[in-house]
């Protein structure tokens, strides 16, 4: 971890914090997994919501177009 500390030009307390008593290679990846998984859990439903509404708008637009073409023959689904 000393290379990383040098890279960020950290010294003293901050460097000691990031070194995690020599366990930095285990502690920080564990925290990274925690945050990455939870962020993914947050993003997935956002994308799904956008897709659902986009598809619904497409369906509605097609329905309107169909009704305009033949006002009487197509019943609403």
């Amino acid at each position, binding site marked *: 971890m000393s290379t990383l500390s040098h890279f960020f030009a950290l010294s003293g307390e901050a460097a000691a914090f990031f070194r995690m*008593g020599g366990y930095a290679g285990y502690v920080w990846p564990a925290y990274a997994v925690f945050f990455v998984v939870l962020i993914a859990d947050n993003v997935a439903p956002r994308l799904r919501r956008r897709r*659902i509404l986009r598809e619904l708008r497409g369906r509605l637009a097609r329905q309107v177009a169909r009704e305009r073409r033949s006002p009487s023959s197509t019943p609403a689904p």
Partner: protein
Amino acid sequence: MAKWIPLWLHKLGSPPTFYRFAGAVRPWAMGLALLFGVIGLYGGLVLAPPDYQQGDAYRIIFIHVPSAWMSMFVYAVMGVSGFIALVWRLKLAEVVAMESAPIGAAFAFITLATGSLWGKPMWGTWWTWDARLTSELVLLFLYLGVIGLYHAFEDRRQGARAASFLAIIGVINVPIVHYSVVWWNTLHQGSTVSIFGHSKMPWEMLWPLLAMTLATKCYYAASLCRRARTDILALESGKDWVREIAQAEAAR
């Protein structure tokens, strides 16, 4: 439905009302989750002293243990709402059960991954087929099974009922995970924190752990609200109130 159920609960069961309710709850739950999370992480990573045996490696506990608790808690919620979905055929109970599964799977995965990263420096191995680890892995597979079974059906409600049935059967695994360290001789340590009685942990380490536990609980509430809202939109996409939302979001 029975008379003893209050009217507001009846109303909450209707999808558009629940959609608005979950939308109002979500930002508060997420705000509390972030607040408790920041406090807990500061307490756990900065303020808490290193462990006399494990040094700083023990700091993984502040995410590992809350995630493990949540993986069991979410399963219990999924089992109960799955039961309600099967018995009373409540659409909303199906939604809560099925949308809990991915969140629970996420927490089970975090538990296993962080536990592995903690096990390597402390036990000398990433993985061992020990009772606690194996039962937690089974819990993850149960979540994945529920998700898979749900998506295997053409009809979503039929899939939700089949998956709810699997979820209920799998509830048997939750006490097995919890008591595995008592029933079997395992490499995994026993419970450090107990709700009733004395916790074997100094206060400076205990309060960040409890703060992180609250943070993960609030996070689950927030994530469930978001997922349930999305799922309700998909289920009710033929209804007028969902069309209005779709048109309103297009205008933005």
